[in-house]
């Protein structure tokens, strides 16, 4: 199981801020591909992924228990 976190437009497209996903082994890219298939209405082009609160490259391993956040382009300040 991994814990997914959604924000901004993706949170609205998914209709939820968080969900758990059954998970054995894979990479951040595998999680991204799952999300693209699950929420096809959302354009993930500019979305970055964070694993356990750090930005990662898509080849980063994702293990059960990890928190994976989808980070659309930020606009704080």
């Amino acid at each position, binding site marked *: 199981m991994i814990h997914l976190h959604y*924000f*901004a*437009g993706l949170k609205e497209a998914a209709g939820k801020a968080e969900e758990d996903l059954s998970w054995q082994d894979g990479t951040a890219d595998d999680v991204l591909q799952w999300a693209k298939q699950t929420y096809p209405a959302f354009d993930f082009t500019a979305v970055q992924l964070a694993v356990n609160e750090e930005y990662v490259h898509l080849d980063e391993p994702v293990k059960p228990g990890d928190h994976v956040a989808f980070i*659309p*382009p930020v*606009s*704080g300040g």
Partner: protein
Amino acid sequence: MGTELKPFHVTEGPIEAAPYMEYVTHPGAGAVTAFAGTVREWTNGKRTMYLKYEAYVPMAEKKLAQIGDEIMEKWPGSRVAIVHRVGELAISDIAVVIAVSSPHRKAAYEANEYAIEQIKKVVPIWKKEMWEDGEEWIGDQSYKPEKESENE
């Protein structure tokens, strides 16, 4: 200890600059800069009624602290405190305060600007502009709503 100030903080309540300026002030400092980012009413000809900010709070606070570490490394002798507000903000409300102290003023100005630029690049906080006739997440270029009546 409820009044103890967190130097890198994301909060839902109103924010003020003074406590953060006091936090970074110390005998070795010769300058303190405070930046306040406020909610602008008009952006690109569109009138904002209010803004909604949301954050991935634990990661945002971690990233703010990293910016603080970078500043202390790039501008030795400086101290930093940053607070960002989330939730619904009205026009002229303060969204972010950055306080930097340094031995001399140039570093305090430069480091303060560095902080806001980094916030806009790496800190997971999002702003939604709420207009009379619609709304949009800003910076979220992956979301392209249909443009309607651009001449209005």
